[in-house]
């Protein structure tokens, strides 16, 4: 996971014309109504949130939707945030981002937009085995769409755990910290998710 601002703690260092503040002091200022401080937090962290969302979704509109959702939640939750009592701002932000992605996954699942057919399965098989051209942009987009449709067959919990483990390459303890689950729960969930993914792959590939 990206570690851009976790140790970003050079509070109020004078760097010429502009002052650099820590995330925590910006959060304090933003919670007291300083719009510029909030804007600075947004500029600093929007890519972090977008990269988390990009692991789950393949459409830029949806990634932007998650980013907006996360920063709106943060705007209204800043009053309750305290770096002394809880995690760093970046960790807190990541947790909100993961929860927002999870909510989106559940919404997608409810709309049942997945309609993965046997032809789609054949196409994914061909692309994964390298028989189809995979170097051009269009081909990448098609493969990604197919993979997303396949993954939409998993439950949101399974998909979240597998994405964090395999796409985001996070450790079990990091996932436990982010989701608020216990380490053993993450392990059990991951095991079940792998079984579910195997079943989906056997069915369609």
């Amino acid at each position: 996971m990206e570690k851009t601002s976790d140790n970003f703690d050079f509070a109020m260092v004078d760097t010429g014309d502009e002052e650099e503040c820590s995330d925590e002091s910006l959060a304090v200022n933003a919670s007291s109504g300083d719009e510029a401080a909030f804007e600075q937090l947004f500029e600093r962290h929007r890519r972090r949130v977008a990269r988390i969302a990009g692991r789950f979704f393949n459409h830029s509109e949806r990634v932007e939707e998650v980013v907006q959702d996360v920063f709106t939640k943060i705007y209204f939750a800043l009053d309750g945030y305290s770096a002394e009592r809880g995690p760093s701002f970046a960790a807190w932000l990541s947790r909100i981002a993961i929860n927002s992605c999870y909510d989106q996954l559940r919404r997608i699942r409810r709309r049942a937009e997945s309609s993965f057919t046997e032809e789609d399965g054949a196409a994914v098989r061909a692309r994964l085995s390298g028989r189809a051209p995979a170097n051009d942009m269009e081909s990448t987009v098609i493969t990604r769409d197919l993979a997303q449709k396949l993954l939409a067959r998993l439950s949101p919990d399974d998909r979240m755990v597998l994405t964090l483990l395999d796409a985001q390459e996070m450790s079990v303890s990091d996932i436990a910290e982010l989701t608020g689950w216990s380490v053993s729960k993450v392990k059990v969930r991951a095991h079940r998710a792998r079984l579910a993914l195997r079943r989906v792959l056997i069915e369609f590939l």
Partner: protein
Amino acid sequence: MLSRKKHDAQEELDRIGREVLRVAAMSDEESDEAVSSPFLLARLRARIAAENERREMGTTAWLSLIPVLRRAIPIMILVTLSAVGASWYIQSVRSGEQPATNIGLYPDPRGERMAPISACAISTKDECSISTEEVLATLVNGERQEAQK
């Protein structure tokens, strides 16, 4: 041998699964591109303003209920009090009424009519009791009637 094959098959499925998950994700560059719009902050501000308005509407909706409640609560208290009063009045009127006389329905001696009996028939009060003279008179009358027959 069989379990080895099964294990290999599972390994292969897991490898494909990881590949599918990797392929389904956007690259970091694409994710960065998705939030590079200069209007994103403006859209976020609009969303925050809308959310703020929605929250304030929720609060003012509660506040607008206060005048309604101020009128409704006294009326509801009045209605409740009048219902309790009416109930209490009806109960007191009923308890003030004479108890129902113990009127039973005795079969008529002729077997056709049902005749009410008086309260004295089953009362133990002195004024209702039959005197010794009445008993004797009844007995004498009965004997006379038999003698005449």
